[in-house]
Every structure is written in C-alpha cells, then in structure tokens.
C-alpha cells in the first residue's frame, strides 16, 4: 500500500514540476512587451469603460494616452480635468483641460402641453417608435418617452419621470460621456457647458416646423419668432429653420431671452426666483 502512495506522490509531483517549468519557458518565449506605464495609467483612470472618450474601454484609452505625444483629441469626460492632470503627471506630459459639460434634455412636451393624440403599441424603444411615426404627441421632433437614453446611461444619471413622460438628468451624476446623446434617435439631448451652481439657460425645443404647425402640437414649442434673438446682448442666439439656439459658450446667463419668449420654451434652471408674473409662469411651466 505504502509503495503505491509513494509512487503516486512522486509521479504527480514530477508531472506538476515538469508542467510548471514548461509553462514558465513558454510564457517567457511568447511574452508580449507592454509598456508598464499603460497599466499605471489604466489604474488612474475612472474604470467605467463607458466609451465616452471614444475608445473601447479604459485600457484602450490608456494605450492611446501612452502612445500619443499630443493629446489634442484625448480627454476623459468622466474623470474630468483633475483626472487628466493626474494621468499627465504619471507620464510627464502637459495636461489637457476642457470645460466640464453636462447632458441637457431639450424637450418639455409633457402631457399637459403636448396632448397624446394616439396610443403607441409597438416595441417600447425610441428607435422603433421614431422609425414608425411622429410619436404619441404628434410632434416629429419631440421626446418619445420610451427611455433609450435611460437604458444607455452607465452612471445612473438619467431617469424617466413617469408623470411628465420625459427624461431628467441628475447633474451631479452626469459625466457627459455622450451615451444618451447617441442613444436618442431625435438628437434631443445635447452636451452643454456646465455653469456655476449648475445654472442653465437653453431653448427647450428642437422643433424645426413652421411656428403655426409647431404650436398646434405643443404649447411650449419654439415658434421661431426671433424675439430672443433680437434681445440677446451677447449675440449668443442663432435662428435656423424656425428654431432658436443658444450657444452655451457665448451665453452669459443674463436671462433677457427667457423674459421675452412668448411660449416659455427657453428654460432657466437653478436661478433665484424673480418677482414678476412672467417668472412665476415660467417656473410653473418649467416643472
């Protein structure tokens, strides 16, 4: 009996050792040299693998950072300026800085403003509903409310409000990775410059139909009247195809456009309340 056990032990140990030696030499022979800095950089990155940088995951981005001397188009919106500085320090390069951004949903067609004239019974994704028709609210540019943007967010930063049927972005969680922007088939969501105290002023509509047509579907549509364009002291507003657009970089948040908009489709978010009747209606409608 003992002999068998001893022979077994010796045989197995022998096989194990031989395998270990073979594996070691094979590993050495076929080793792929990788710059060790790639690992270091990857460690420093947020690790969300969201694709916001345009690469397939944080490791691919780390490789690009190490391989490229110039970082013109390389930026991680999730980590932001602080993180890019840290990575730059590891590699001894100049840090790139970009103004922080946040995702903004540019439609306010709630059931109160935009009546649901049909009932959609197809597969519950925006992509399919958009391919089919204008949507339950009738506006061909309006939010379909089926949540493709919510599905696409890796950071739990956007959720559907069941009462309004519109998505809402949580500014503190949004990393401006752009996933929701790509997911929306109607290009309703836009990445805009993040301001102090999360203040925003933007035209909450992307409807390009003629004013009379737009307003028939939705009471808070942009009718392209140009009143905002005329009043802006910083030339931040442009009019195109019956639609006003506020450039977030040029806009100085003076709120003059908000006051003159006849349909209240320009929203001001996170500002102190104003003591005018107009402000109250705007506030009410902004909810």
């Amino acid at each position, binding site marked *: 009996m003992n002999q068998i056990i001893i022979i077994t032990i010796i045989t197995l140990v022998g096989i194990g050792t031989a395998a270990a030696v073979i594996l070691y030499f094979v590993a050495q022979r076929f080793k792929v040299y990788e710059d060790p800095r790639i690992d270091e950089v990857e460690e420093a990155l947020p690790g969300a693998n969201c694709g916001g940088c345009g690469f397939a995951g944080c490791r691919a981005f780390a490789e690009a950072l190490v391989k490229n001397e110039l970082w013109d188009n390389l930026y991680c919106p999730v980590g932001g300026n602080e993180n890019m500085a840290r990575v730059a320090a590891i590699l001894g390069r100049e840090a790139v800085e970009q103004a922080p951004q946040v995702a903004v949903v540019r439609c306010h067609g709630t059931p109160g403003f935009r009546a649901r004239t049909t009932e959609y019974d197809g597969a519950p994704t925006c992509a*399919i509903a958009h391919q089919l*028709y204008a949507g339950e609210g009738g506006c*061909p540019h309006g939010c379909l409310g089926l949540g493709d943007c919510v599905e696409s967010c890796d950071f739990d930063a956007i959720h559907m409000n069941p009462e309004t049927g519109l998505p809402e972005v949580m500014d503190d969680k949004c990393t401006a990775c752009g996933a929701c922007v790509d997911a929306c088939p109607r290009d309703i969501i836009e990445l805009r410059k993040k301001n102090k105290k999360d203040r925003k002023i933007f035209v909450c509509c992307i409807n390009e*139909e003629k004013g009379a*047509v737009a307003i028939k579907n939705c009471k808070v549509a942009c009718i392209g009247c140009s009143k905002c364009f005329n009043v802006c002291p910083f030339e931040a507003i442009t009019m195109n195809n019956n639609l006003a657009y506020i450039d977030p970089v040029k806009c100085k948040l003076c709120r003059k456009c908000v006051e003159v908009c006849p349909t209240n489709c320009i929203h001001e978010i996170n500002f102190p309340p104003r003591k005018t009747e107009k402000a109250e209606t705007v506030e009410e409608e902004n909810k």
Partner: protein
Amino acid sequence: MKLKTFAMGGVHPPENKLSAGVRIRDLSLPEMVVIPVSQHLGAPSKVIVERGEQVKTGQLIARAEGFVSTNIHASVSGKVTKVDVFPDPSGYRRLAVQIKVEGDEWMETIDRSDTLVEEITLEAEEIRKRIVEAGIVGLGGATFPTHVKLTTPRGKKAEYLVVNGVECEPYLTADHALMMERSEALLAGIRIMMKGLGVEKAILGIENNKPDAIEKMREITRGTGIRVAGLKVKYPQGGEKQLVKAVLNREVPSGGLPIDVGVVVFNVGTVHAAYEAVQKNRPLIDRVVTITGKSLARPSNFRVRIGTPVAHLIEETGGLPEDTAKVINGGPMMGKALSTLDVPVVKGTSGIVLIRDGEARRNVVIQCIRCGKCMQVCPMGLEPYLLMNLSEKEMFERMESERVLDCIECGSCSYTCPSSRPLLDYIRLGKAEVNKIVRSRKAV
C-alpha cells in the same frame, strides 16, 4: 388541377374578405383633396402649379424629377388653395398640393367613354412614354414607377410578364373586384404591357379563394396564350419573389430583382391603369380602394380620386364605428396604422381596414422559447429570432451577413410567434441600420 405555391414558409391568416363581391362604385367627390408630391418610391416630384391656379381633372400638377420618379396629376378640378406641408399616411408632414374641388371638369385630351379599345396601335417605346406621362406606379402598394420596370436594364432580358392578381392580404378585395368587373380592359392592359416589355409569354396569378375571378380571367384569356395560374391560398403569395417562384419555379437571387430571372411583375391595378393611360389617354388620378372592417356598416370597394381624405371614405360607408381602435392603410399584415383620418388616399392605398377594440392590441411579450416557428414560416429562409436578438444588441454587421436585407417585411414571423415578440419591429430597425452601413461603404 394541382394548385401551385411557394415552398418555403407562409401563414394562413383568416381571410375576412367582407367586401368580396361588392361592385365597385365611384366615390362621391370630397370638398378638398390633398395630393402629396411623394406617393411613390424615388425622388419626390416637382410642383408646377401655384396657389390660386385653376386646374382641371387630369392636369399635370407635378413633374417627375429624374428617371426614378413620376408625374402627378390633379384628380379633381378646382382651385389650388395651398402648396404646403400636410400629414401624409406615414404621419410625418410632407409637401402636398391642396385643391378645393369645384365641379368635375376634365382635360379634353382624356377619353372618358366606356368603350373598350382593344387594338394596340402604339409601339413599345410609345407605350413606355404614355405610361411615364400618365404617372403610373405599382398599385400593389410598393408604388415603384412603372416605366422603370418596363425599361429592361442592359444585359438582362425579359422573358415573362407575370401579373399579380393574388391579393393575399386579408380583408382586401380591390384587385378581385377589378378582375371581375374590368376583365376585358385588363386583358388589353396585359397585352399592352407585353408589347411594352417585348415579351411573348404572360402568366396571371390568382389565389384560389377567388375561384370566380380565376374562371372569368381563364374565359377571357382563352386562346390568347396568356396563362391563368390558380395558386394555393397562403400568405404572402402576393410577394413578387414568392409569386415568381410559384408560377415559374425561379428564385430571384438575394439582393436582385425579378428581371434577373427574366421576369417582370405588375399588379392587376397597375396593368388596368396602363390600359387607361395608353388607350384612353387617362393619367393615374384614381384607384380602386377597399374600405372594410368588422364593425363597419357597409364594407365596400370604391373607385376613389387620389387625394380624397380617408375620413370622407369612411363617412360614405356608414361612418366610423364607435369601437374602432385602429385604422390601417393597407392590409393588416403589412399596412401602416394611421394616427388620424385627416390623411389622403394616395396611389399606394389599396385599402383602409378598421380594427375593433379588443382585437387591436398586441399581447404581452415574453422571452423567446426557441420553438423555431418563426423560422418555419419565414418565406425567405431567415432566422427572425436571431435577427431580433442581434438588433437588440446593435450587432448590425452580423445582421447583414445573416441576410437581413432579404427580409420582405411580410410579418409572418411576428404573426406566428407564441411569445408575441415584436420580431419585425426590430428586424426593420436592423434593416435601416444595415442600409446606412451599406450606403456609407459605397460612398467610400
């Protein structure tokens, strides 16, 4: 005699031919018509009339833009009130010409008499010209400009004309009525198309649920060499690839057209319109439309002027029933659901089907049970469950290699699925994305 059919796939939805046997009547003229400039596949036509202009019935109001496009004519006489965007059956707003109907004055060049003109005096080239001028498109629903099909591309030869009298969609009876009531005109039309194509052989395919039409057309075509093929009732027998397979046992190649196997297919409505264009100088300004539904008071077949609001059509057949939950432009398998009744009848409108509450909603979707029924019914030999999976995961390149572009969107898969999965919804999405990829590849 043994009935032919296509071998692969197919389903048997209940026929519900409520309006079968109802004689075609001319629908009364509405007050306003709205004629879209894009009622066909290809480039939208260019409007040549202005607001305020008086037009006569049959007058050209929009010209074809390029080869794959078509002319559009006023279907009524009256004053052009607006040239603007209007909702069309797809729900989105498109450019259209709105005409206020005043009387019914026709262009003098049109022969409005009922006499049958059998003799074909024109040559093939002239026939093609007449058809272009008359704005004829495929009336089966695809609305492909007919003159393009009559122009055989270089390197290909047309051997057979196949006429599609199948009408496999449930509820629709417009083609049936046409074959019963206008059979002689149809025969002349078939001869005209044969001459236009330069073929000597023609086959008319009719499904076996219309035995009277098969008999009538057999009688009419006796001695002419035009064969009438009775076909087994199976959806989608009316799909042109399935039709060519059934009557001639030839398979149109993937990504190809029937002309690749020497065949050109036209719907009976198109052939009839061709007769009127060539022999009566009558442009395409009206068509036979089936208006039907289980709760509708009088399911009927009407000859309707292009641009007539669907609401008018429904009023004339008893009004919108209280329990109407869905209004379909076309048949229930491939038609489009309307958002509103304020849309016009266009060249491709073969029927309006009203679906009642209780039959209009889809069932709850559950997971795929891998039963394979979707594959058994797919007439193109695809794997719908797989295509839906790939589409959900946005794996569009793989969808291309799984031949998603072969899909004819017949709906047999979604119809059959025991889990009520929205297979065709996702497949259509995939097709659109794959087409984008293919286009961007060609552009490089």
